[in-house]
C-alpha cells in the first residue's frame, strides 16, 4: 500500500493499493485506467496555483496537481482516453455562522471537477462535502475506491 501524504501524489500498477488519510477540506483525486490497471492519486490542498506564494509543490493545487498526476500516469503507460476519476473530500469540518462565501472545501471540489472536465476525464463517483473526514483507498486491481470515515462507516465506489 502506498500512502500519499498531504500535497503529495503517487502512481501504482496492479495489484498495489494507494491511499490518502484523513481528508477534511482537502480533496483526494483517484484516477484509474482499466486497460493497463494503472492508478494514481493526488491529495490537493488548494484550488489553484495562481496567487500562491510558493509554487514548488505541484501536487498541492487542483490545477497543477491533476495535470501532474495525469502526466505521471501517461509516463507509466496509461492511455488518456481510458482514464476515469473518482473524488472524495472537500468537507466543511466546522460551521461558522458568519461565512457567506464558499468555504475552502467546496472551492477545492469545484476546482477539481473543472480541471477534470477540461481534461475530458469523466468523474465516475464523488463523495464530497458534509462535515466529516475521509480516508480513501484505490484498488488498482479493479479501480474501486473505498471511502472510510470515523463515524459514518465505509462506502465502496
Amino acid at each position, binding site marked *: 500500500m502506498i500512502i500519499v*501524504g*498531504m*500535497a*503529495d501524489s503517487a502512481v501504482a500498477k496492479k495489484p498495489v493499493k494507494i491511499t490518502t*488519510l*484523513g*481528508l*477534511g*477540506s*482537502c480533496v483526494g483525486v483517484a484516477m484509474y485506467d482499466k486497460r493497463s490497471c494503472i492508478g494514481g492519486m493526488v491529495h490537493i*490542498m*488548494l484550488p489553484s496555483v495562481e496567487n*500562491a*506564494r*510558493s509554487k514548488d*509543490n505541484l501536487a*498541492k493545487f487542483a490545477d497543477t496537481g491533476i495535470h501532474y498526476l495525469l502526466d505521471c500516469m501517461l509516463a507509466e503507460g496509461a492511455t488518456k482516453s481510458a482514464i476515469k476519476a473518482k473524488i472524495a473530500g472537500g*468537507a466543511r*469540518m*466546522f460551521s461558522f455562522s458568519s461565512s457567506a462565501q464558499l*468555504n*475552502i*472545501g467546496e472551492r477545492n471540489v469545484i476546482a477539481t471537477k473543472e480541471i477534470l472536465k477540461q481534461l475530458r476525464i469523466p468523474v465516475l463517483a464523488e463523495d464530497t462535502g458534509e*462535515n*466529516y*473526514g*475521509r*480516508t480513501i483507498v484505490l484498488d488498482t486491481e479493479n479501480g474501486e475506491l473505498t471511502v472510510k*470515515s*470515523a*463515524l459514518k462507516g465505509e462506502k465502496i465506489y
Partner: protein
Amino acid sequence: MRMEELDELQASALREIVNIGVGNAVTSLSKMIGKQIKIEVPELKIEKIEKVPEIAGGADTVVSGVIMHVDGDINGYIMMLLSQETAEAICSTISGEEHTDIFTEMNQSLIEEVGHILAGSYVSSLSEFLGLNLKISPPMQTFDMLGAIMDHILIEMSRDVESTLLFDTFFTLEGNRMEGILLTLFDPVSMDKILNKVAEMV
C-alpha cells in the same frame, strides 16, 4: 531571526517558556478533573506544513479535537487533541457519570470548554513571559480523523507560508495510558517576533 540562530541558552529559554505555559495549562486541567497529569518536555520544531498531521500522530488517527485561533501580536493556532479514552475519562470525571458518551451535546461542550480553559492559561502564560498581546478565539470542537480536523488550518497557513513553528507536548493522565497532545502552530512572521523577544530576554 531564524530558529538556527538562537543559541543554546535562547533555545532552552524558549523551551522553558513553552514548558511553563503548558505546565500551567495542564495544572488547570488537573484541578478540574482531580487527577495527576504528566507532561513531556515540549518539542520545538520548524516543520513543513504538510508534515504536521504526521507529527501530531497520523492523519487518520481518530481524536477529539478542540481548535482555537490565536491572534493579537502574533498569528497561530492552538489545538488540544485527545484520544477517545482520554476524552471519556475527562468527561466522566467532571460529570460524575460512570459510562460516558462523548457525543452528547453536554459532553461535546464540556470538552470544548476544557480545551478553551487549557489554551487560555497556556496563552496567558506565553503572553506574560514574552510580553506579547495574545488572544484566543472561541473554540471549535469535533471528533474525527486528526488530518481532517486540522487540514483547513494548514490550508489557511499554506496560502502564504511553507513552514510553521510547532510546539507539541504529549501529556498522560495518572495511572492510565490515556494521552493527549497540545499543539501550537505559528506562522514565520509570528515566529520571528517570538524569537526576537526571546533573544532580547536572554
